[in-house]
């Protein structure tokens, strides 16, 4: 029997869900509300320094990658719930999207 890839994608979904539950609301507040309103400093210099620091790179990669895997995996279930038939092709596209997005983040962070 072919081995299922389910444990891999479920683990990434779970890790992303845990990260989103722990710091998701605060991250969204900081970058999407507080920074644009001038309550926290998200200047070019400061953000570049974060993205050039090893731990900063790791944090940004983990947040973007795991949020994508969490979101895309749950969206597959949403499609099913709304009566859209989900076959291997749909699953592969959603997981593939998360893989591509994570790869893009890795390439950008590597280049910065």
């Amino acid at each position, binding site marked *: 029997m072919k081995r299922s890839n389910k444990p891999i994608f479920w683990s990434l979904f*779970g890790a*992303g*869900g*845990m990260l*989103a*539950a*722990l*710091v*998701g*609301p*605060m*991250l*969204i*507040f*900081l*970058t*999407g*509300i507080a*920074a*644009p*309103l001038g309550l*926290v400093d*998200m200047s*070019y210099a400061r*953000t*570049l320094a974060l*993205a050039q620091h090893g731990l900063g790179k790791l944090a*940004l990669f983990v*947040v*973007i990658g795991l*949020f*994508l895997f*969490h*979101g*895309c*995996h*749950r*969206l597959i*279930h*949403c499609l099913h*719930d*709304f*009566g859209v038939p989900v076959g291997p092709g749909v699953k592969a596209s959603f997981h593939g999207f998360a893989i591509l*997005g994570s790869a*893009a*983040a890795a390439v*950008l*962070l590597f*280049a*910065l």
Partner: protein
Amino acid sequence: MKAYQRPMAGWWHRNPFYLWYTLREASALFVTAYALVLLAGLARLRQGEAAFDAWREALASPASLGFHAVALLLVLYHAWTWFKVMPKTLPFLRIAGRRVPDRAIVVAGLASAVLFSTILFVMVKA
């Protein structure tokens, strides 16, 4: 031959339980979009200061602030449900041979979220 497919339209708002379920699942759309917003920010950061400032300006638009406000609420609800089901999603935890009560697991999860979010806030605000 065509197999019967039962109709799926409108099931999600007929029962409050399903509505809350659907709201939680909708958080996935916002988590994905938020990750893409951050990814776009990284791409703009790579292009230089002018491009990054244009990204920041876009974040200050009413549409973006509205998106982030809705995302904040839905992800908060996601977090609440995530910790609420944690006694069921985790294997049984035992301390000194006794099972950790469900309530303690939920409280520990919520407390960790508050702790880590506070640490993040202090680090960013400093």
